[in-house]
């Protein structure tokens, strides 16, 4: 499903964020990306959904070569990826409903199915009573859970989660991880960038450790 070979990434500022990353994720895999702050976790995820183009190396995502991908294909690819951004990227001028429904609208889903679907995913993350709130009126952790709900709303075959539990207490974090593992059981590939190593102990998965833009360790927890 995902294969990276000698992936290098240099930002316009000159910073080399990734210095030759080799990584293979099978369909249905459950992978943790760990590493110190600035190790390159977010950068790896960003290359996967084509937000930044790698400077050098091979990258295939769901069978598509990310170096030569056309705009139309990239769009299709993105519609099949659920992304939880590290900075959430909620739209503050729209309700929680609109935020969570956005991927469905983008994909042109049946408008009558929006509300039931959005309600269901918000229930998963424990925010069903905040359907018509604006993100501003939510606590930090609640905002993060809205972002998680949005990533799951269109039931994508690949979920990329960048620090999904950074603002959540242990109980809620466990619950979210349970949820992701349940999705994983049904075939969804999940890649989680996290620094919360205590989660790894309770929820098994393949662990890829990054350090200064390179993979230094790969193991199963």
């Amino acid at each position, binding site marked *: 499903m995902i294969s990276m070979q000698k992936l290098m990434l240099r930002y316009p500022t000159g910073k080399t964020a990734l210095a030759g990353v080799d990584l293979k994720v099978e369909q249905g895999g459950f992978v943790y990306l760990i590493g110190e702050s600035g190790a390159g976790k977010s950068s790896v995820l960003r290359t996967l959904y084509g937000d930044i183009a790698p400077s050098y190396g091979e990258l295939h995502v769901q069978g598509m070569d990310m170096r030569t991908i056309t705009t139309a294909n990239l769009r299709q690819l993105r519609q099949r990826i659920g*992304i939880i951004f590290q900075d959430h990227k909620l739209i503050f001028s729209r309700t929680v409903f609109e935020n969570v429904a956005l991927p469905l609208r983008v994909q042109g889903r049946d408008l009558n199915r929006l509300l039931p679907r959005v309600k269901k995913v918000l229930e998963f993350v424990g925010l069903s009573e905040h359907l018509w709130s604006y993100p501003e009126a939510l606590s930090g952790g609640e905002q993060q859970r809205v972002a998680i709900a949005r990533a799951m709303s269109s039931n994508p075959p690949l979920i990329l989660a960048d620090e999904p539990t950074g603002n959540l207490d242990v109980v809620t974090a466990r619950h979210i991880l349970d949820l992701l593992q349940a999705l994983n059981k049904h075939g969804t590939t999940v890649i989680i960038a996290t620094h919360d190593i205590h989660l790894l102990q309770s929820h098994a998965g393949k662990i890829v450790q990054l350090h200064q833009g390179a993979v230094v360790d790969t193991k199963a927890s």
Partner: protein
Amino acid sequence: MTQNKAQKNVKTRLPGGYQLPPFGIQQSLAATIVCVALWMLGMFWLGLQATEQWIGSWQDDIRFHVYLEHEQKDQLKPLMAKLKEVPGVDSIRLVQQEETEAWLSKWLGDSGLTTKEMAEVLPSVIEVLPERNIHEFLFTDIKDEAALLGASVNEEESYFATAQSLFDDMRLFLWIMSALIALAMMVIISNTLRMIILARADEIHLMRLLGAQEWFVRMPFLLEGALIGLLSGTLAWFMDWCVLQLMATWLSELQLDMNSWYLLPVMAGGGVLIGFTGAVIATSDVKQETASIL
């Protein structure tokens, strides 16, 4: 909140489920500027229409007068033949002695003095009737022709000749001005939308990251541009119409029958066109912004 409200929130959307951006201060400002500009433009065109009718009303009265002195009466026939051949001249007429007398008498303040003896030494007067479209050089042509045979023209009547050509210039000028104003309005709408797009750059970026189609991202802005144009154009026409109503009695006194309805589709349609084109210009930047990220 009730299920009812929930359903309403879900349904009131544009096709594609997109929400129209809120009509804020920026849009209102742009719409106002465009509206005032179109209003003034409309007034100018109505003014031209009025001038056209007004000129039409006295155009039939335009005459040029050529004077041939008493001593040169033998030149009268060749002069009349020559004048008839000047391009743009419809017909000529020799003014009767009595007419000249009456005219002179009137000019002298109806003093009732016997002008008969006087008129006998007066020059012969030839009245020249121009064609409907008076060209710029007609008066000079007549003057030159007259001078060749020792006759003179009434210099003050040269204004009649220039009025018509001035009017044509005005029409051209108005077309150019219309094009310029349309361009300026396009720039204003495009800049306004560009600001809004800038303010919503994060949202646009997010939608692209979710794999949104181009039309999904751009449509609301295009619609908004067209809407601003439509509103401005219609309102501008309405203001023009109001002005006409206010001047109704005055216009009917001048026997002008203004038709403002033909302006409605022109202004509303023009507004939509301007707004839409402005939006296309503004959104064309959107692509370039994100092209580097891909």
